[in-house]
């Protein structure tokens, strides 16, 4: 792999919370266009890793690079979002009083400054983009419903739709199928594969069936660092992984 193909590069990232080491010299490289599944037991540092990438948490030591020359540890959340890193939270967080349509509208990539949004009118181009996102996440019929009135699975999809509307280069998804039915889980896997055709994706997940369905390279985290990586069959045969998952 050449350096120019690297999209995200974490090197020796350590985060301490009052003596608890959430990340311990974590290193991870993600290529452009790659989809990666990150698994690991509770407390392995999966969410902290996302916090570090999106600027919510500053690492104590280590490098976090986006592309070749952007140091993410120097930027705050809005700046990182503007670079093209989108994030979906574990608990779906959509804007509840707003309609599905407006949720997507607010997520559409574009000028984020008050001086723009004070005067902004919905353009035909924006309408077209919203339509296309709603189509992708299958919420076309729900466009006028309040975000807060959607079912759990629909909220998850709306949030993925909001991510797509941001047009990020990299999507970080924290447990996207939590609380979904089997059918919804399957549809989500399909959706992610579709998204992955044009964008890089990191999925943190507990649901092993879902990870298997994605059929991508898996990274296993344990106590804040990488325990094992490779195909799902490779890591599930790794004795250290078995030890961590079953040995306690």
């Amino acid at each position, binding site marked *: 792999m050449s350096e120019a193909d690297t999209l995200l590069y974490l090197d020796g990232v350590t985060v301490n919370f009052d003596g608890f080491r959430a990340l311990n010299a974590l290193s991870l490289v993600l290529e452009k266009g790659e989809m990666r599944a990150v698994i690991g037991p509770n407390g392995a540092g999966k969410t902290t890793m996302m916090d570090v990438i999106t600027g919510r948490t500053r690492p104590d030591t280590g490098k976090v690079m986006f592309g070749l020359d952007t140091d993410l540890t120097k930027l705050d*959340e809005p700046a990182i979002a503007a670079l093209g890193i989108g994030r979906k939270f574990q608990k779906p967080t959509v804007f509840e*009083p707003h309609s599905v349509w407006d949720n997507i509208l607010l997520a559409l990539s574009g000028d984020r400054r*008050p001086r723009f949004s004070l005067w902004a009118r919905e353009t035909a181009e924006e309408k077209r983009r919203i339509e296309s996102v709603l189509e992708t996440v299958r919420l076309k019929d729900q466009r006028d419903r309040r975000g807060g009135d959607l079912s759990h699975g629909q909220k998850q999809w709306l949030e993925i739709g909001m991510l797509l509307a941001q047009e990020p280069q990299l999507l970080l998804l924290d447990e996207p199928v939590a609380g979904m039915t089997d059918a919804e889980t399957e549809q989500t896997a399909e959706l992610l594969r579709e998204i992955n055709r044009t964008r890089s994706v990191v999925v943190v997940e507990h649901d092993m069936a879902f990870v298997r369905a994605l059929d991508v390279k898996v990274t296993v985290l344990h106590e804040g660092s990488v325990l094992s990586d490779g195909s799902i069959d490779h890591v599930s045969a790794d004795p250290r992984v078995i030890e961590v998952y079953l040995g306690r």
Partner: protein
Amino acid sequence: MKLDRTAGLTLGLTFGIPLTLALLNQTTDVSAALHVPTYVIALAGKYLCFAMLALAVDLVWGFAGILSLGHAAFFALGGYAMGMYLMRQIGSRGVYGNAMLPDFMVFLGWKELPWYWHGFEWFPFAMFMALLVPGLLAMGFGWLAFRSRVTGVYLSIITQALTYALLLAFFRNDMGFGGNNGMTDFKDILGFPVQADGTRSALLVISAAFLCAQYLVARSIVRSRFGKVLIAVRDTESRTRFLGYRPEAYKLVVWTLSAVMAGIGGALYVPQVGIINPSEFAPANSIEAVIWVAVGGRGTLTGAILGAVIVNFGKTWFTGALPNLWLYALGALFIFVTLFLPNGVMGLFAARAKKPAPELEAAE
């Protein structure tokens, strides 16, 4: 701009009722059955100015989630700017007959007008200051607070501290704003005698016009895309950051605008009540403004106006009939509204019309 029924009614009543009162005061004889006495005109004018303060509070509290417990400070600063203009208009008609210095400065033995009083004899300058001073203070305060991500109850407490600090400062005689007694005994405004029926009626109608204008501005802001972002910030601030928005910028804009709106209310309040003193900075005043909004219905704009008028009408009645019980009544009202009318009086209307709660309606 498209107006729905609520907005149409709000504007119609907010302008129509004061206009009717003013016309009845001016065109009917004192003995006529329909005559509106001048004290009612002054009271109505006062309510409208309070409604501007309420609207300002609702804009930040209802739509940006910033619970300000110090908004009366901006109102009072606007009032002081108007007070300074009115003091300069007294000229040599003061007790000491000094054409240059207001009475309280002569009394303190000052020889010349402090530098910051210059220009206030000129009405446009004074009015500009009534907007600029609250706006600048809010901008500085907001820039520091929002950038440091101070939110919730902590922010409420420092807004309370802000108004309390100003209260103490304006109490001091050497600040040059009349100290404890403030400013009063005004004679005329733009050449019209402040106490005259005609001036009072005109001020009432002007206040109504300003309130309507503020309502329209606030309404178009909360319905714009800016307003949608604001509501998103109110409900899930961190989510908006990950979408690339800077919540602090949005809060700062709406907070500063809200302070200016409160300042306009204060500037119109002073000629109608005839006095401005440091008690306007009292923390209790700001808390009362929050109660008006809660009673009317937070996040509805119309409710803010309604709440300010209802509660102040009650206050006028109570302080006349049962003066000792007013604060208990206010406290009881606040508890009642919190427990049984979470969406205020506007919530009652919305429930009757079987519509979503107005707070949410405003978001659409």
